[in-house]
């Protein structure tokens, strides 16, 4: 760890690395593992507890019970929250009894129905994996890519265009081509702010926010104009060719498609790039200490541009995955904020591909379960966004978690996430 002395600014990933590679200071492996996951884990628990609190205080039944006695209200609140969270987890993981009885019955459709929730959760996680890998890669290189949302849109536009306009291709060529188009679209949308950052110092946070809205307007225009489905008055694109659709692995109602495995493959690729290649080392060095990296002869400009382009490409794949795997066409508000959620997930996963995949699986699960919770317990799905914000607070300010749970501070530098200054210094 020769770079360690030069560390002025710590990013989350760097801290994670340090923790993984730190000299054993009399601590067991488990103690160290606890160190690196304790904050995310406690943040998730605290977020769910606060979410439960919100469910309780907005429940009519709880207030009705409050009129009788506070104790009644507490009891009702516990029941309400349990109903809600039971629905959340049975809706996202499936109920064990249903799985067992379906397997006993042996009816194929019943079995698929029983396994559907968990596969649906994996399907929902897929865009999160791509998008949060994009943000994580940015963090690793000291860049805050807040523009994943726009890159997702442009990726989707590119890949849906390749999907419907090219005909007569075999799937083995068409699918990779459409995916690459998505990556290219996202990469262009990441390249522009990356280039501006490197060449002019224009801060990537502002530029990527601007690029988001340019992308939204662009897709508005395309879907109302050149890319509108010929026989439709709605702002939707034509449906892509069958040869461009990502294959589904099971029969209906299961929507699970190979996109999930592509996402895992890409996550592995990002890990390999970051931690096993010279380029990844440069990127991380520029991220953790640009001054030292410059003295070491690394190209800040090249790395910044490459990192933003690659980050954009990853986000573009999230868009491609959605249009090629699920919707099969492009509609105006097809991405429900994956790009913004992914900021939270990248931080939760400490900008490490493994952590990011786990965080994405968690949120795919929560989102899927929330749909069922909405039906069973009449709790709007937006509760997940609130929970996510709570979790993000605790991740971003670990000192709060430490205060609540009285954990002693990590040895060495504080785990706060810092990115390079507003002014582009």
């Amino acid at each position, binding site marked *: 760890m020769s770079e360690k002395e030069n560390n002025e600014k710590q990013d989350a990933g760097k801290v994670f690395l340090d923790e993984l590679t730190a000299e054993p200071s009399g601590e067991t492996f488990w103690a160290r593992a606890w160190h690196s996951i304790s904050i995310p884990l406690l943040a998730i628990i605290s977020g769910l507890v606060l979410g439960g609190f*919100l469910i309780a205080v*907005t429940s009519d039944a709880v207030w009705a019970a409050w009129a009788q006695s506070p104790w009644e209200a507490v009891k009702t609140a516990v029941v309400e929250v349990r109903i809600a969270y039971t629905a959340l987890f049975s809706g996202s993981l499936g109920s064990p009894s249903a799985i067992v009885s379906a397997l006993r019955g042996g009816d194929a459709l019943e079995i698929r129905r029983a396994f559907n929730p968990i596969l649906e959760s994996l399907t929902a996680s897929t865009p999160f994996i791509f998008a949060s890998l994009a943000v994580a890669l940015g963090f690793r290189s000291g860049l*805050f890519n*807040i523009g994943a949302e726009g890159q997702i849109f442009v990726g989707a536009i590119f890949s849906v265009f390749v999907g419907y306009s090219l005909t007569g291709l075999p799937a083995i060529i068409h699918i990779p081509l459409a995916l690459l188009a998505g990556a290219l679209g996202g990469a262009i949308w990441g390249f522009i702010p990356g280039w*501006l950052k490197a*060449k*002019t*110092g*224009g*801060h990537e*946070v*502002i*530029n990527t*926010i*601007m*690029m*988001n*809205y*340019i992308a*939204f*307007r*662009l897709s*508005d*225009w395309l879907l*109302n*104009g050149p890319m509108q489905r010929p026989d439709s008055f709605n702002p939707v694109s034509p449906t892509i060719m069958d040869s461009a659709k990502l294959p589904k692995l099971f029969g209906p109602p299961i929507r699970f498609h190979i996109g999930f495995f592509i996402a895992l493959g890409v996550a592995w690729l990002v890990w390999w790039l970051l931690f096993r290649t010279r380029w990844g080392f440069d990127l991380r060095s520029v991220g953790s200490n640009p001054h030292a990296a410059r003295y070491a002869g690394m190209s800040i400009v090249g790395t910044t541009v490459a990192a933003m382009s690659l980050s954009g490409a990853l986000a573009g794949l999230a868009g491609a995955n959605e249009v090629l795997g699920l919707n099969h066409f492009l509609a105006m508000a097809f991405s429900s*904020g994956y790009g*913004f*959620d992914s*900021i*939270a997930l990248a*931080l939760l996963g400490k900008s490490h591909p493994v952590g990011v995949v786990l965080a994405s699986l968690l949120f795919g699960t929560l989102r899927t379960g929330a749909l069922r919770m909405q039906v069973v317990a*009449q*709790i*709007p799905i*937006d*509760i*997940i*966004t*609130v*929970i*996510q*914000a*709570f979790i*993000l*607070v605790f991740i*971003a*300010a670990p*000192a*709060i978690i430490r205060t609540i749970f009285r954990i002693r501070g990590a040895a060495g530098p*504080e785990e*706060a*996430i*810092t*990115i390079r*200054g*507003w*002014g582009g210094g």
Partner: protein
Amino acid sequence: MATTIIERREVEIKSPTRQRVMGVLFLLLGASIWLFFGRGIEAGVETTFKLVPGGFESSLADWTLPALATLNILAFASAFLGGVQLVRGFGKRTNMILGIVASFFIFGFLVWAAAGKSMNLAGLLNTTLSKAVPLTLGALSGVLCERAGVVNIAIEGMMLAAAMVGALVGSVSGSLWVGLLAAVLVGTLLGLVHAVLSIKYKTDQIISGTVINIFAVGITSFLSAKFMQPNQALNDPGVFRPIVIPLLSKIPILGPILFNNNMFVYSMFFFLILIHVGLFYTRWGLRLRSVGEHPKAADTLGINVFNTRYMAVLLGGAMAGFAGGYFTLGSVGRFDEIMTAGRGFIALAAMIFGNWTPFGSFGAGLLFGFADSLAGKLAILGVQIPSEFLLMAPYVATMIVLAGVVGRGQMPAADGQPYEKE
């Protein structure tokens, strides 16, 4: 640090490269007026501008212009200014000339778009003003925070939360003013969250802002779906009515545009002046700015950096809350999910475009508001330019400014850096 900033500014305005770039830009704008607008128009076609907003009675006659001649004059004038800039340079006045040429271009566009037709110019300007209100107020929130060195990308979230609470409390209490007060309080509260996270816990300010944005989207959608949609009585606060100011509203052209608005427009002007004077002509403002430029020096001189930043961010939050109140109490009269629709980010852009100053932000707010209201008119006029491109213009313009093509903005030197007391 402060001296270097002033030096850089001098150099940037007077540099020969900039002089040439600007000259070419003026020439290009002049050429485009001639090429894109003037050429397609036949001689004798007239453009009519109505100078009275709809629903307002006045004996003022319409303003009729010969389209082609007007465009040719505008094109020539822009080209002439470009020529002068290339040869001699306008020096310090370059930015002013840029403004003039840009307005020539915009006016040329209007003349072209409404050629052979009639366009209500006063109505357009009136819409521009009201669209500029949330942008300017939001940008003022940004100015307050960032001048003290705290980046605020949470304007969007603060406005959204304040808009919802304003509508809810306004409906329940039956009073618009109570609703507005609640909106301001919610903005202040989120400002406090931002301040505690970014000043006390030294969380990265952008992440802290992102947290607030995500939280605001989640909580407003949740509460709105849970309570306000099933029970519309909770979502009917009404709106502040326009107040016609006697005498002033009788001024031709400007009167009906400026002095027949609701309280938010007048408040915007009030806050604009208040914050401008406060920031640049009082001790309070000097202290606030010093904390944003060089906190260490300010600390040495006995200014409490943390308290000053807390105060600035709380005030910024209150301002964003006020801006949020505009959406429900000043404009629509009800809350819809995610109704701010990115205007907080345009406000952020307006602040950057306006060079972190109140009046600059107002100018940018007007410009962006103009693009927005014009986008709504294009379809009516039958112009073949997709309105989406006009709506993109603010974002593209901000990126260009940020890239330093037309002179780099002067952001506070310590913007975004947490202060660590030694």
